[in-house]
């Protein structure tokens, strides 16, 4: 195994593009190192991106956009007052990952690129409308978060492509987001269902909404019908029923050791209701 510490994303990309074996980028390593220890993946090239300048930065751009570097750990996000105020749902998704120890290392982009349909920070990012900047052999491009996952353990990134950072759009006024997951325990578990809701209100009325489910399909699911159920409503009982029904209808889950199809389908609706209420309160409250 070769271990690399490139100084730029272009170099990181070039190393990855030139290899012929198994390649992994090393951000926090809370997936990669665990998989190596468990004999699941044995990389030929391990490319550590933590030596690249700027990867630890969390920056509020002039346009109100948040730029989060590729090596910013969960604990740095949950301790970031400005980010928590703008995007509490995104941060609470990341904040659910692992334990205090894991939080000291785990990153948003690692969570995204590991490709787990149950990744906790990804529904919140997608609901927020976040994008990532991708550096590759053919240059740089911006990609929507929901376009990265391709299925369990797979992404749409091409060989040699690496993600340099995440961009959260300007929060703007009267917005709120929330993420909830269901696990059979209280922590240190993997989402059986996850649901993020991001919305904006005008008075009591919802004007914009995005609803994203995790762990109920091979990738996260952006549920347009669920968003439609919210938009124009005041989150009344009928809207909540329609939201839950749309969320459940969007599920394409599997029966496995973590949950049944029926359970995941039901609970997706339950979490959608509960997350929508939190996001709605946040939108009307703080801002």
């Amino acid at each position, binding site marked *: 195994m070769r271990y690399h510490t490139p100084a730029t994303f272009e170099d990181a990309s070039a190393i990855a593009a030139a290899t012929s074996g198994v390649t992994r980028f090393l951000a926090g390593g809370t997936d990669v190192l665990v998989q190596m220890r*468990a*004999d699941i993946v044995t990389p030929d090239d391990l490319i550590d991106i933590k030596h690249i300048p700027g990867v630890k930065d969390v920056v509020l751009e002039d346009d109100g956009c948040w730029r989060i570097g590729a090596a910013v750990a969960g604990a740095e996000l949950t301790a970031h007052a400005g980010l928590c105020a703008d995007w509490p749902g995104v941060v609470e998704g990341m904040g659910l990952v692992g334990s205090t120890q894991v939080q000291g290392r785990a990153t948003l982009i690692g969570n995204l690129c590991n490709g787990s349909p149950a990744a906790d920070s990804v529904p919140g990012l997608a609901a927020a409308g976040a994008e990532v900047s991708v550096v590759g052999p053919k240059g740089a491009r911006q990609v929507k978060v929901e376009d990265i996952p391709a299925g369990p353990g797979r992404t749409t990134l091409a060989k040699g492509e690496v993600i340099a950072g995440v961009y959260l759009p300007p929060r703007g006024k009267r917005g709120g987001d929330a993420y909830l997951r*269901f696990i*059979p*325990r*209280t*922590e*240190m*578990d*993997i989402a*059986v269902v996850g649901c993020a809701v991001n919305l904006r209100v005008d008075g009591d009325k919802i004007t914009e909404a995005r609803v994203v489910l995790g762990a109920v399909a091979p990738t996260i699911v952006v549920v347009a019908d669920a968003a439609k159920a919210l938009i124009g409503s005041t989150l009344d009982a009928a809207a909540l029923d329609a939201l839950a029904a749309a969320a459940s209808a969007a599920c394409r889950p599997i029966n*496995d*050791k*973590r*949950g*049944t199809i*029926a*359970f995941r389908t*039901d*609970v997706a609706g*339950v979490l959608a209701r509960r997350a929508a209420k939190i996001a709605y309160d946040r939108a009307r409250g703080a801002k």
Partner: protein
Amino acid sequence: MPLDTKTTGFKYIGTRPDRPDGIDKVTGKARYGADAYAPGMLHGVMVRSPHAHAKIKNIDASKALALKGVKAVVTRADFPTGLEGEDWNIQENCMAGEVALYDGHAVAAVAATSLLLAREAAKLIEVDYEVLPHVTDVDEAMKPGAPAIRAGAADYSVPEGLHPNVMRYIEYGHGDLEAGFAAADLVMENTYKTEATHQGYIEPHACLAQLGADGKGEMWVCTQGHWFVRRMSAAALGIDVANLRVTPSEIGGGFGGKTTVFIEPVALALSRKAGKPVKMVMTRSEVLRATGPTSSSSIDVKMGMKKDGTMTAAKVTMRMQGGAFPMAPIDSALDCAFSCYNIPAVHHEGYDVLANRPKQAAYRAPGSPMAAFATESLVDEMCRALKLDPLKTRLQNASREGTKASFGPTFPRIGLVETLEAAIAHPHYAAPLGPNQGRGVASGYWMNWGGETSVSAALGEDGSVTVSVGTPDIGGSRASMALMAAEALGIPYENVRVNIADTGSLGVNEPTHGSRATYASGLATIEAVKQISTKLCQRAADKWGIPVEAVIWEDGSAKPSGPNAGEFPPLTIGELAAEMGGTGGPISGHFEATPSGHGGSFGTHIVDVEVDPETGYTSVLRYTVVQDAGKAIHPAYVEGQFQGGAAQGIGWALNEEYIYGADGRLQNTVFLDYRIPVASDLPMIDTVIVEVPNPGHPYGVRGVGETGITPPLPAVANAVHAAAGVRLRSLPMSPPRILAAIKAKG
């Protein structure tokens, strides 16, 4: 053995000093199984079957052996043949012979100069399998057409016509069952199922083994019982026990799962072949796949009750699979099933069944939690039907001194009534509950154990005392032994050091199992140190020139027994010890026996849960353990045992389970998916220590380690029923199952 039981007026017993092993453990200095190194040491890695059931057609290790640094490969061909009974079972489980019997069954092992190399080499060992049909569920394994895992191996007890997977059959009871059911106002019968669970000890199995061509060997091993390791390993390898010296490491939990061997004989075989010491350390996945989880069970219980709550008759049929080997704990499960109650007519039937799963090992009160789940759930259902208070009904029927136990003998002094009375009086039982919340109660029993015990105590030149016991310290037993020695000698706790001796230093000791260590090693410690004080009285008598009968031992000193004995100032243990070299030589005490006065321990638990009606998620809000300890030597460690038992029982009740795929392979081989409760899942578990002294121990001790895991399974099920209105008769009560039950109820 008649004992002069002392139950009051203690100076050290019942205090809570720091444990002697505490600092080493919290500073990382304590040496566990994997912390041993030897010059020239190799690392051993196992090759395991990926199939639930497969014939091993050929094993080709040539590619592995061709790697530089690979020193030995062993298969079953490297072990002696001709073993019988449990010796054969253990050998077969440690290394498969002709057939791999479960997913994870060891089929070969390799030793190399580094762990990485050994892992690499293990992947290069080519095993040619012929996959056979498999069965993992106990009920399926008994059906016609189920693959016979070991045809013809059933023992004489099995009636004709049963599936060859049934290895043993047990039937017993007393009283007129039909008359009992006829006399009842309500007869209920239900079937309950429990899944296999794992002890989940935090330290994986590990050992460092050395065995020479001369047949002499040594081993450092993480175990609950090193004499068991010695006997089993020696048998598996065909060597004499005296030629194998086994030293136990510190141990990070066992709960019964470390009372047998898995890697130890294999490490010895590798060492013998390579001519070097070999270390083996299991991964967590190996622990879950290929050590000794519990049996899974399927249980029919029937009970008759009068309107006033009087139990009239009860019948249980227990089917348990213990993996691909006999000895599922049907015996103790049946014995515990109705042990809490004085029922005029009882009948027990048990089937010990093979399935393609790892060989079960002991887990905290083996069999009793499953039995309690069935019986105590049914008792709760009947109390509901008859609108009776579940604790008062238990009290009304409770076993007490003189009751003919459901399993035969007459109970001596026991403490079930006292635990029930304490539970009824506890504020928890009357505390208000909120919406979607419910309360459950249950009682449970474990008979405990005595077992072979050998203890030595030696006096130091300054009057301090070293006690050597053979029971590894898992739950603070060194502190308890030191307290008992201090009490018996009248010297400070700090002046007693307790060591866990190796197999070369004492007679045979059974493991720390059956909740026996504080009882049996404690009893032997007291008797051994009493020999020291007796000898010291003799030295004082000689010095004073008076007969030894005129000398008594009190507060750590020899004293004249009264004015007639003469006027002599007391001689302290320190003074006598300082001159012992000149007054007759070193002084030590030794006691060995197989004490059988272990008293059983009963417990009663109260639990409040809240069930989320939309997700089936259960949170445990409040939990109280009430249990009879006989006498709590070190109350903090007794409470720790109560809490630990409850925590493990809650895990078993709610989320822990062995999940097998259709291919017969274990699906949840890491702690992510084998869901033990995490700290934040549990409330602080409240404890009440009841002390009904055990007449079989000098200070009244009863074992407390196991009973605590028996009531939680039914107590939680009863609480879930109260909270959500649904009765779960299959464990675990995971959210999908509870939600499905809520939806089915409508």
